[in-house]
């Protein structure tokens, strides 16, 4: 099963988006959870929704792999 990885910085052409396209949006990284990053992630989300309104989206936050807690258990 071929899988293509495309960075959002490079952008996705509308013709590249199919019904099977998934955008995994990283909204933050551990130790860099600042207000500016949150706002930038929000703008990125809005841009993705504007460009690809029908594309599947999954949110993710990086850097918590070595912690046994779940993300929502962090205060």
């Amino acid at each position, binding site marked *: 099963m071929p899988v293509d990885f*495309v960075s959002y*910085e490079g952008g996705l052409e509308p013709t590249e988006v199919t019904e099977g396209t998934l955008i*995994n949006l990283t909204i933050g990284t551990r130790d860099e959870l600042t207000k500016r990053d949150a706002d930038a992630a929000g703008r*990125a989300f809005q841009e993705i929704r504007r460009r690809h309104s029908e594309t599947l989206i999954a949110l993710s936050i990086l850097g918590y792999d070595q912690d*046994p807690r*779940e993300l929502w258990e962090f205060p």
Partner: protein
Amino acid sequence: MRRYVRRFARSAGLTDWRVAIAVPWLHDSWGIAFLGAYGAFGDDAPVKVNLPPPTTKQVIGPANSGVERPSHELSATPSAGGPQRKRAAIRRRRLPLTTLRCRSYRSFRQLAFAYGVHLQPVAGREGVGVTAPALSGLAVRPEQYRNPRPCQLPWPRVHRQACRVPQDSRLGS
């Protein structure tokens, strides 16, 4: 974490549950339920998110002291040691960010597995191009996304039935 996610939700315009439910999330656990777990929606939102009780325990104090605290009482500050030094090196850009093991990528792999997507090495390494925080994105275009097997993803889950959009509601009105 809670403030960060809620701030993201505000910036993304996802504080309205009607807007959030209209987004084509790959799975509720990584979409509307994720936001709902952090209280991104108002109290009047008919979105009920079930979270499991924290079960992870960590021994604190001297070794074999037997003192345990539930995970929700633990601090989010990582303990000193290798991972902390590694993160510090990453902040100084001495290590590429892609060397950082991350929960979300592992979870993403589980998610991809559940949906029948096989991740393949990119440029000789298995990574997701984790470069610019908050702006990095990953798009996967498999031939076939949906997997006939039921998706066995962990919490949080959301009650879809309770999130049904009323017929007369109009987004953005």
